[in-house]
């Protein structure tokens, strides 16, 4: 059986975890999208 503090920590962990995971996905997506556009520029130049 959890105590009240453990419920609080679990809920806050979910809040931070979901928001952090969202930012990680966005940073990853941005990395691939910008890397791909740089590759295009290099291909056009050569």
């Amino acid at each position, binding site marked *: 059986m*959890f105590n*009240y503090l453990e419920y609080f920590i679990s*809920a*806050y962990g979910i*809040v931070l975890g979901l928001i952090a995971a969202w930012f990680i996905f966005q940073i990853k*997506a941005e990395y691939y*999208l910008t890397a791909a556009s740089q590759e295009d520029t290099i291909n056009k130049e050569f």
Partner: protein
Amino acid sequence: MEKFIEKKSNLIWAVLILLLMGINLANILWNTPMVKDQHWAQKIFYYHVPAAWVGFLSYFIVLVSGVQFLMKKDIFWDRMGLAAAEIGTLFMSIVLLTGPIWAKPIWGTAWIWEPRLTTTLVLYLIYIGYFMLRSFGGNPERVRRYAAALGIIAFVDVPIIFLSVKFWTPEIQSHPQVEMSSQPGGILFPFFFSMATFTLLYVLMLKYRIHILHLKEKRGTNV
């Protein structure tokens, strides 16, 4: 194209949010009174309610974007609507997860089929349908129009959620109906601080997601 965080104003915004989130947590931990009977579980409300506020605000932006898109046919509004729908659903997930975590020790059960919980779940499921439409709708131009219309219709559920605690008979109500104006300053100040922090975080997330969707459209990929 430069990365989102490379723009100075975005970097300052992100640092400020990190700082505010830290202060917010410290506030919740040490500056808020322990409520008798609920103890630490009550403090879940300092981020459960702001998450709900941000979720509803986000769905309001989906509504506004939908109207703008249908009137102006400008793809910017479609992008804004999609970004707001995604982030709104993320925050509604937080609401639907943290609510039952509070309810378990207080009600003795994680879920009750009472009006506010049920109508919130209905809204969440409508948005699951919205993303299915976005993914499997077929013709992109038609999907944009349908998604805009669905975003407008879905918002009808938001006032129903707000009014559900008054609309249905008291016998079937379990959701707390707290009058914020009657709360002491020790609860009010950290609560509004948390609301402001979550709202600022939301604005940053919305700007970032719009930036990514813009990059995706330029590249024609589905990352």
